[in-house]
């Protein structure tokens, strides 16, 4: 029973951490209709920023903000490549993903892995670390990551209801409509990519604080993982009109982590993990086609309550 509880807590922890990234990818992939591959490198970017700043003694929450900011800048670069230089969406993402590999190494001063044990992180210091202090370590982490993830979700929900947020959704839906309103849809794409990659870097930052190490290779497979979470969440909960898409995406992330954990528990070797991730996404995509109804646009409405 304890093992099961431990596994459940673990799934929830990771589900919420990667859920933050999935919410970001929801903005780029679903709202903007932009398949953004830079995510694979903005995730470790967040980790690297966290490692360096926390080692230097910067407040861990401040490091989270910094990670979000750096991710957002990377997203802007992807957007600028696409909007200003007219490079296709996929290629813009690939260019930034590749370029960031070097940037991440430079941030870590040439090291591929950088541990920062026994430093102040969001999990053991500050207001939240102390408030949740008398919980066991695992529960403390869970409470803090769940809280952060839900906060990010709520902030994005509010943003999507502002004028700027409505315009962002319009840009993904019908760029011509945004032009008709006298606004540049390219600008909205850049804003969306900034938010998406900011969230991704934030997730990377939080994950590295939990493991107390940053690893430049931690971003492998993030695009697939995030897309799977988004698609699982939004298609499974399509019928549940009372659930917002951002919530659905977090649930998708948790379900996805649960699938992986179950497979591992059933004795699947770690080497097959990436393979399994690809298979799960394929299955989800196929099921999504079969059940979505003939070419109907039946996304979960982002502002549905």
């Amino acid at each position, binding site marked *: 029973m304890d093992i099961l509880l431990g596994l459940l807590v673990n799934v929830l922890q990771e589900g919420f951490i990667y859920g933050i990234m999935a919410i970001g990818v929801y903005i780029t992939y679903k709202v903007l209709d932009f398949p953004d591959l830079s995510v694979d490198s903005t995730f470790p970017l967040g980790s690297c920023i966290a490692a360096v700043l926390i080692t230097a003694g910067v407040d861990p929450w401040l490091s989270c903000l910094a990670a979000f900011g750096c991710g957002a800048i990377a997203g802007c670069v992807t957007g600028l490549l696409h909007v200003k230089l007219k490079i296709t969406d996929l290629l813009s993402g690939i260019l930034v993903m590749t370029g960031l590999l070097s940037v991440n190494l430079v941030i870590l001063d040439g090291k591929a892995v950088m541990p920062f044990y026994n430093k102040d992180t969001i999990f053991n210091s500050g207001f939240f670390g102390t408030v949740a202090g008398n919980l066991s370590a695992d529960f403390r982490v869970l409470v803090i990551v769940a809280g952060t993830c839900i906060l990010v979700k709520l902030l994005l929900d509010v943003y999507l209801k502002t004028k700027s947020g409505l315009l962002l959704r319009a840009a993904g839906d019908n760029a011509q409509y945004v*032009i*008709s309103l006298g606004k540049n849809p390219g600008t909205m794409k850049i804003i969306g990519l900034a938010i998406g990659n900011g969230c991704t870097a934030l997730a990377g930052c939080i994950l590295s604080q939990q493991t107390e190490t940053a690893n430049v290779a931690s971003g492998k497979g993030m695009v697939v993982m995030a897309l799977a979470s988004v698609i699982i969440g939004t298609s499974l909960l399509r019928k549940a009109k009372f659930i917002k898409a951002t919530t659905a995406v977090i649930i998708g992330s948790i379900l996805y982590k649960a699938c992986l954990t179950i497979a591992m528990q059933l004795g699947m070797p770690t080497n097959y993990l990436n393979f399994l991730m690809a298979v799960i996404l394929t299955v989800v995509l196929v099921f999504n086609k079969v059940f979505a109804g003939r070419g109907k646009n039946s996304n979960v409405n982002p502002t549905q309550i």
Partner: protein
Amino acid sequence: MSTQHKSDTMADYVAMRRICKTFNRDSLNEIRLFQNFNLEIPKGQFVAVIGSNGSGKTTILNILCGSVPIDSGSVSVNGKEISRLPEHQHSEFIGRVFQDPSKGTCPQLTILENMALADNKGTRFGLHFGINRKRIPYYRSQLELLKLGLEDKLNLPVSSLSGGQRQALALLISTMTPIDLLILDEHTAALDPRSSENVMELTQRIVGEKKLTVLMVTHNLKYAIRYGDRLIMMHRGGIVLDAAGEEKVALQTKDLTEKFNEISLEDGN
């Protein structure tokens, strides 16, 4: 008339002067569409444009909206030279309804969200709440004018509306904030006869109420004769017929078909 200085009348409220436009220059399929094309529209005039396929009607609208750059010449609306502005800045003073009903609205957003966006045209689109609840009665009253029952469907995504309903909504949306020029590109072409009659009636009413200057392209000769104060027929990048006032009133569908036949004889088909 000829002694009058041009810029101090409203006769050139919308002016396209000496427009030259060649597509695919220096290639095998080069199309020299406009050579010194001129068009002037006085304030408040409703112009209907007809013409053969490929005569350049849509291109004129695209040039006015900034979607197609010109090689040389000038385009001005209400005294502003606009030919060098980026496309989205044209929309600040030009409203447009497209032939394709899915272009004029956002299908996944609700009617309310679409209207709220349009209502904010010309503002900064910052972090204020997107939908102003106090404006909802106004949106409702506007939708009631369409007589399509849309006022009770505010929270429905536009994708669930019919083409005719969408086109009526698009018309409403494009004229919600003050504009200098309304551009209609075969905006009833995708609709069944009944809906297209409705949308034309609606167009007439909105144009009359808001005293808009309008450029409407249509392939429907009946509409071209029935609506508007001036009729222009285009052929191969030039104007072959331009009738306003009495002359326009006297025009019959028969005259236009004859003119069309004349043109196609020239073309040898």
